[in-house]
């Protein structure tokens, strides 16, 4: 995981959960376990879209559960 996407995604995840302050995230951590509820998660997706200039479809989000999967989706969509 040496690319710039994962740290950038982690930075945005941190912004959405006060309880993560100062803690490093692992790719396999589930977003729902990080103090991010359904509404906060939607706000995170808007931030991700804005940061990376993407338009993410609802269907693609349904398979995203972990921070790593979120970063993976960003890489996939950025490559399109």
């Amino acid at each position, binding site marked *: 995981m040496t690319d710039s996407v994962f740290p950038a995604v982690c930075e945005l995840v941190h912004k959405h959960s*006060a309880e993560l302050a100062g803690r490093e995230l692992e790719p396999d951590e589930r977003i729902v376990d990080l103090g991010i*509820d*359904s*509404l*906060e998660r*939607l*706000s995170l*997706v*808007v931030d991700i*879209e*804005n940061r990376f200039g993407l*338009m993410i*479809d*609802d269907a693609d*989000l349904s398979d995203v559960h972990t921070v790593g999967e979120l970063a993976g989706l960003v890489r996939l969509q950025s490559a399109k």
Partner: protein
Amino acid sequence: MAHVVITGMGCVSPFGDGVDAFVAGLQTGRAAEPPRGFDVADYRIKGVYHARATDPDSRELPLELAESALSEAFRQAGVARGEERSCGLALASTSAGWHLPNETLDPARPLLRGDADVTVLLKEGPGLALAERWGLDGPHCTVSSACASSTGALAWATERIRDGQTPMMVVGAVDVLTEVVFAGFHSMRLLTSGETRPFTAGRSGFVLAEGAAFLVLEEAEHARSRGARPLALMAGWGGSSDAAHITTPTGEGIARSLRDALADSGRKPAEVRVYHAHGTASAASDTAEAEAVTEVLAPGEETLRVTATKSAVGHTEGAAGLFTAVAAVAAIGLRRLPPVLGVDDAQPATPRLPLHTAPAEDVQTSPALVHASGFGGANCTVLLDAPDTAAPVRHRHARPVTVRLAVRADAHDGVRLIPFDRSGGEAEAGADVAPQAASSGRVSRLLSRAVGAALDAAGPRRSAAVRESGLLTGTAFGVQEHHARMHEAIRSRGGRSVDPLDFARSTFNVPVAECAAAHRVRGRTETHVGPTSGAEALVSAVGLVEGGRHPALLVAGYDAPENRLWHVEGDAPVPARATVLLVEAAGERPGAVQVTGHRRLAPTSRALTAPAVLRAVEELDGDEPAEEVWADLAGLPAPERAAVYEALCDRRHRPMNANAGAAAVLDIHVAALTQLTDGGPRSLTVLSTAAHAPGVAVRYERGGHD
């Protein structure tokens, strides 16, 4: 207690003008179209359902849609313009005013001058204009509880007929398509690029729509005496607050609303034949609603049919509940139910509902429940029945009502408890209360602190009863700081930059919802809108306690300057404040202050006059004039104001001048109650008026021998 019937209905829907076009459209649905007022290139979703307006670019679009719907409803009811002066109007709207975003959502816009026409900018605007045009001088209000707004307006109007204030009410709802709302629902991924398919495996959200609908509600004997044909019986209503999450509804909360409506209507679950669902085709909402219907109406599953109008007409936002009520009333008359469109065989993992899919099938169309849920976990349900149904006879015994205490939470002075019951009574330690989310807005925090202190001071037994009964609020400016942020995001970075957190926290009822969640207030919550709305919340609560529906209720007004995005030069400042009162049935305590009467004054040029104000005061006086009159006459033209003061000059009166905001109006009532409790005058009438708002007069009296 008066029976309430429906004698007229009208609408302008995405299917065109009139109820006939709406009912026909429910059988077929329609194709989506691009929004008129904004570009969708930046959005994933491209289509909406516009209402068929004659002049879609009109500055007065909400009013024009509402006018057309009201005309049709009155035509059917056989009421000519100006013919029923005692008729009132209840309006539900979430979006009126936001159709002019550069004028209403930009805090940097210049101050308006005193001669500006501001009604077009107000959420209450369509109701104010219609009352003036149609001569509707009866009880008047605007409610805004997100997508549960219009069933809430039906409930409020029903109570005004039941309590004998008027024999006739019109209830309207209007919402128009605006980019802030489209972008908000888009950011929450609640919109579909296809069609609205509630309760089906293929559901993917809803199509955003707009329109206006009106119903005429009438006391049954009044309708009979003027030869009007009842179309349906408005049998009862129920409401609840999820007291959970602001955007994830709960089945348990919806179930309580359904049960409350059944209880109020004197109906058993097994008797219900139709459930007209909220049905937004979002996974969370459909699942919660299906659970509630299965739990509450299971005994009737053999004979129950579920239908969902949004499958055809999309989501008309705050007007959705009233459109569904129109569909339910039409179904009762036609003996034919609108189908749920696009149902496939494989329903998803929600509890399976008996969806009505065959339009030709011969099914019973009543008794029918119409349910609406809104952001914030607001639920309100009405029960409609065939017009010839014998409604249960119930007697309404007006019982005395008192205000037990008030709490003021202020940005500068902190929280202050003001008890009006000095007899000791129950004063116990505070309850265990969940902390408010730190990210909540300021008005939410103020309201929550005030309500928390009021519940603490009420003691465990009383506070438990209050939590189950509910919290009625008023606000002049809502939480529009969020709208300003959404508007700014759209302008500077494009509609897809709107933060869903801003949208979720933007509906006017979110402060009461966040407060209900923090303090587990599970009873009904309602949000009245306008400068005098705090006083309306107060007299609404008095009516419900007086009539025996609840033992006690919380009432609140809140506002803060960051939510006033525009104002007129010379307007009073807005304190950042929430003021809460606890209204309850009066016991036998000597010296307690009672609410001995109240009067509503419509916001029309005929009803807000010196003679009308003086008549209200005199009616409240009865045989014994109030020792003092506190009058805020800001809602009257200067000559009328002078005439009132002149007429009051031979009795003790005090001119009042409330600050802006719904809390400031209640603060005057708190000051009056304090005077009475402290042994000042024995009786006092408080009159609250403001520009572009209904007026409220309340008489308080210190009873017994103290």
